């Protein structure tokens, strides 16, 4: 009966909405291409020693053992029991209040405050919980920008923003061009220039979005810069979104300064902008728990909080996870020791990468935070252009077998920069990666490519302890995908 009509029917693909079919999700950028390549041929010290090493994933695997030790000590949290052994499940099963579990919000507010050296106090009622920072950023965009409105974002910026902020909301991103001349710091002139460019394109600028510590630079924003940016948004009457998901990774001096701290210092002078400054936070990087999908928006703007809270029903955190994390973050001793030890380990790994690169003549932007380094490989390129960068990147992915993110995918204006992540692998794997890179650099100068191909796998196989360790570090499920 139905089948009679089928004959004169159009292909179902035409039935898709424009959003579903269109490309503004940026999946085709080189950032994602590298991912696909990695998924086809992932490195494994035993089963696939010549595979691609994933250095494009900003994931913190350095401190799992601490989370795990905590879980071991507090089995009640996972078993959804109170200390007296009574089950809390009955309360959790039907809990779907989008205001979140009060205990969790209180614990999160305290933890965020701790990350900022208790210089800023967070009001739990101003926190909106979302399923990850991705969702938090998008919800903020929905709240602040209409279709066709623009946000200014200093470049280089996280490649995923092109999808997260623009795809469904229809908002636009106008890059604020920063250069290596001043270490990619944001300047007032650059902001003004971007603002003018937006106006020329007839875009209504709704705000500035910064990542602090910066992704992909791995640097914290100096206090003076933050003051300048606050000044700028105050003068223009626009919003400021500060994405501070890496705040707990700031391992070196000068330390991390939150925009909220700057606001607090401005005191009465900040009154005019205080409800236009919004902070995005997440536990994915600081606590190394991206699988838990916990993000948050912090805003003193009642209207934004109320709208974002309602929107959060499109991405709520499971009550079980909230309960578990409330217990974990409520344990002050644990968070204190975790944060300190985690930073120490990140620094150690960061130094390993930076030193290794220096030995082979590659320099990095000096950084003090993040799970990655911003690496300058321009001298390895055949031509100083984005074509040259692409050529080098392809070589690094396909020949050297390292998936790193090219600067062009981060909208960097200068060719030759790459984001290299170091916290999602074991120290041994990082060694392997450095070895490969060393041979590559040598081969480009004296052409000993054959030597390199033989050397790398042999080394890792001959090292049983390394294998065992690396094995333990490999993710368990075969279907595991990736950050972005």
């Amino acid at each position, binding site marked *: *009966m139905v*089948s009679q009509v089928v004959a004169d029917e159009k292909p179902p693909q035409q*039935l898709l909405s424009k*959003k*579903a079919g269109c490309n503004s999700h940026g*999946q085709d950028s080189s950032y994602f291409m590298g991912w696909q390549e990695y998924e086809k041929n992932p490195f494994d010290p035993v089963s696939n020693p010549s595979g691609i090493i994933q250095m494009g994933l900003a*994931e913190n*695997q350095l401190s*799992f*053992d601490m989370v*795990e030790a905590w*879980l071991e000590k507090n089995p009640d949290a*996972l078993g959804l*029991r109170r200390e007296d052994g009574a*089950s809390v499940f*009955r309360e959790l*099963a*039907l809990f*779907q209040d989008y205001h979140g579990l009060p205990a969790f919000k209180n614990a999160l507010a305290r933890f965020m405050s701790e990350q900022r050296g208790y210089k800023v*106090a967070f*009001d739990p*009622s101003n926190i909106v919980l979302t399923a990850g920072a*991705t*969702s938090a950023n998008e919800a903020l965009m*929905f*709240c*602040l920008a*209409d279709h066709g409105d623009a946000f200014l974002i200093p470049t280089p910026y996280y490649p995923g923003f092109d999808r*997260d902020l623009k795809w469904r909301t229809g908002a636009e991103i106008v890059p604020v061009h920063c250069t290596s001349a001043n270490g990619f710091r944001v300047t007032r002139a650059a902001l003004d220039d971007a603002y003018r460019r937006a106006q020329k394109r007839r875009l*209504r600028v*709704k*705000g500035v979005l910064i990542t602090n510590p910066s992704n992909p630079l791995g640097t914290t924003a100096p206090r003076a810069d933050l003051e300048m940016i606050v000044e700028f948004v105050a003068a223009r009457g626009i919003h400021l979104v500060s994405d501070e998901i890496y705040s707990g990774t700031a391992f070196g001096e000068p330390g991390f300064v939150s925009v909220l701290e700057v*606001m607090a210092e401005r005191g009465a002078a900040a*009154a*005019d902008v205080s*409800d236009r400054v919004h902070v995005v936070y997440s536990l994915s990087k600081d606590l190394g728990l*991206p*699988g*838990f*999908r*916990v993000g948050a928006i912090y805003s003193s703007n*009642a*209207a934004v909080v*109320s*709208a974002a809270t*309602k*929107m959060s*029903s499109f*991405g709520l*955190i*499971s009550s*079980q996870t909230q309960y*578990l994390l409330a217990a974990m973050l409520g344990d002050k001793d644990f968070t204190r020791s975790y944060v300190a030890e985690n930073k120490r380990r990140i620094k150690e790994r960061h130094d390993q990468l930076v030193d290794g690169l220096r030995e082979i003549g590659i320099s990095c932007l000096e950084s003090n935070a993040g799970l990655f380094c911003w690496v300058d490989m321009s001298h390895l390129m055949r031509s100083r252009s984005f074509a040259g960068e692409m050529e080098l990147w392809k070589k690094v992915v396909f020949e050297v077998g390292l998936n790193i993110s090219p600067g062009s995918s981060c909208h960097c204006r200068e060719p030759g920069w790459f984001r290299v992540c170091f916290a999602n692998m074991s120290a041994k794997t990082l060694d392997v990666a450095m070895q490969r890179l060393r041979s590559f650099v040598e081969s480009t100068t004296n052409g000993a490519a054959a030597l390199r191909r033989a050397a790398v796998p042999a080394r890792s196989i001959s090292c049983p302890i390394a294998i065992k360790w690396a094995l333990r*570090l490999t*993710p*368990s*499920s075969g*279907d*595991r*995908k990736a950050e972005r």
Partner: protein
Amino acid sequence: MRRSGAGGSGSGTARRNRKSSSSSGSARDRGARPRADGGMRVVVPLQGVVQGRGGLVIGSLIPCALFYFFQLYIKRNRAPRPLPPPPPAAAASESPPGSASTVVSPIHRSLSRGLLSPRAALPAPSARGAAVRDDDSLYYAGLRRCAEDPYHPASNPAGIIQLGLAENCLSLDLVVRWMEEHAAGAALMAGGEDEEERELSVRGLATYQPYDGILALKMALAGFMRQIMKEVSFDPSQMVITSGATPAMEILSFCLADPGNAFLVPSPYYPGWDRDIKWRTGIELIPVPCRSTDNFNISITALEIAYNQAKKRGIRVRGVLISNPNNPTGRFVPKQTLHDLLEFVTEKNIHLISDEVFAGSTYGSGKFASVAEVVDDLEDFDRGRVHIIYGLSKDLSLAGFRVGVIYSYNESIVTAAAKIARFSSVSTPTQRLLVAMLSDQKFISDYLKINSERLRKMYRLFVDALDQVGIECFKSSGGFYCWADMSKFIGSYSEKGERKLWDRLLEEAKVNVTPGSSCHCIEPGWFRCCFTTLREQDIPILVERLKKVTDSHKLNR
């Protein structure tokens, strides 16, 4: 080409215009109306008179262009944002908790539509304006009122009895018992005693996982859905897991329709859809009324009419959205109707979305048929237009765990939805826990059986209780609701009368029900009552309270 055509066909009208212009000449003299369109009506024929036939085209273009540039001028002059007035006492972020929340800051012009009701006028309302869109729905108003003053047999016996929710507390004890026995181990997936194995499992929890759900959960869900939907098989690769059925519905809508497009929705329908679907996607929902005389069955003729009307208004209809078992009526959509619907959507080349979140919560005598079952029976049918929404909030009483499913037969939709799922994915420990729970075959089949028995019993009790006070109910077969006909107790047979009765039920009887008007029911006097949050001992109290309203109504007569 076009111009000459316009001129040719315009020759007749030009003549007519000339006549009309001369006749309206005196009217013109009486004074140009300030309104732009009034001016246009005068200018266009005048130009035609002055310049002859060719002038008609140019003559109509010139004022149009002038008008356009005028609008553009106004728009551009309005563009510079006036600096928002400094909020009276906007506190710095470090201010003590209380003060920040007491200061209600004005909405700045730079806030977007997301904060404002689409119906709100352009000037920015106060911060509370953000809540407007909920306030106008009695559904949300009742829920809020209830949250302020909830009934409790011991601590607040005078509180409001909540019949407006969509929760099932009848079988919660079964799930609780399972959790108590298995939760800790299951969430960690600590199968082995071995130290190394355990570390592996924590790694599997904490790191980035596929945003659209881990494969293990998809397989477990496919098995569970198969069990519920009577042996229809589901393919895990056609599934996208989201944090609840709410985002599942929104994501699917994002994939199927563009802003300004519409879905046809047989009404009465679930009041939450108005927010869940329309808010961020910009999609319209067009209610297609079903009638009580029809047993609230979906009428294809009504759909056809609504489709054509929308087309006339220039609105592109992208799909039909149904819930099965229906929320609020609790009716199963008959297999024949599903066939007809599939035929309808195929003929119009649009989608069919079937929300089946209550598929496992059935108690009626009839047989529930999922659209998946019907699709499976058909040969050479293009399945790419059929999509199913499912979730565990209702059938497993696990609303807090936020697990929803998009099941689509269309590969491109699955791909697109999986990408959007990054904005609402489920926490991995929860997924692991559910894998363990859904894989416990004995538990699941016991649960489904006992839950169905309890639903049936409670439904019986509830319908009998309403019967005692003279309220008749629609014969439901699934879901958590009783669809009650209280039209004989409303003063005036209108939405206003219904609202009045709802107010009395809430304030005098202290019972919160959902009025039919918020479900877009066109017949006044119907109310949706959720009976699964009640306990048996609450029923006599409920009867007493309802009597207050019904008896006084009889007295007034």
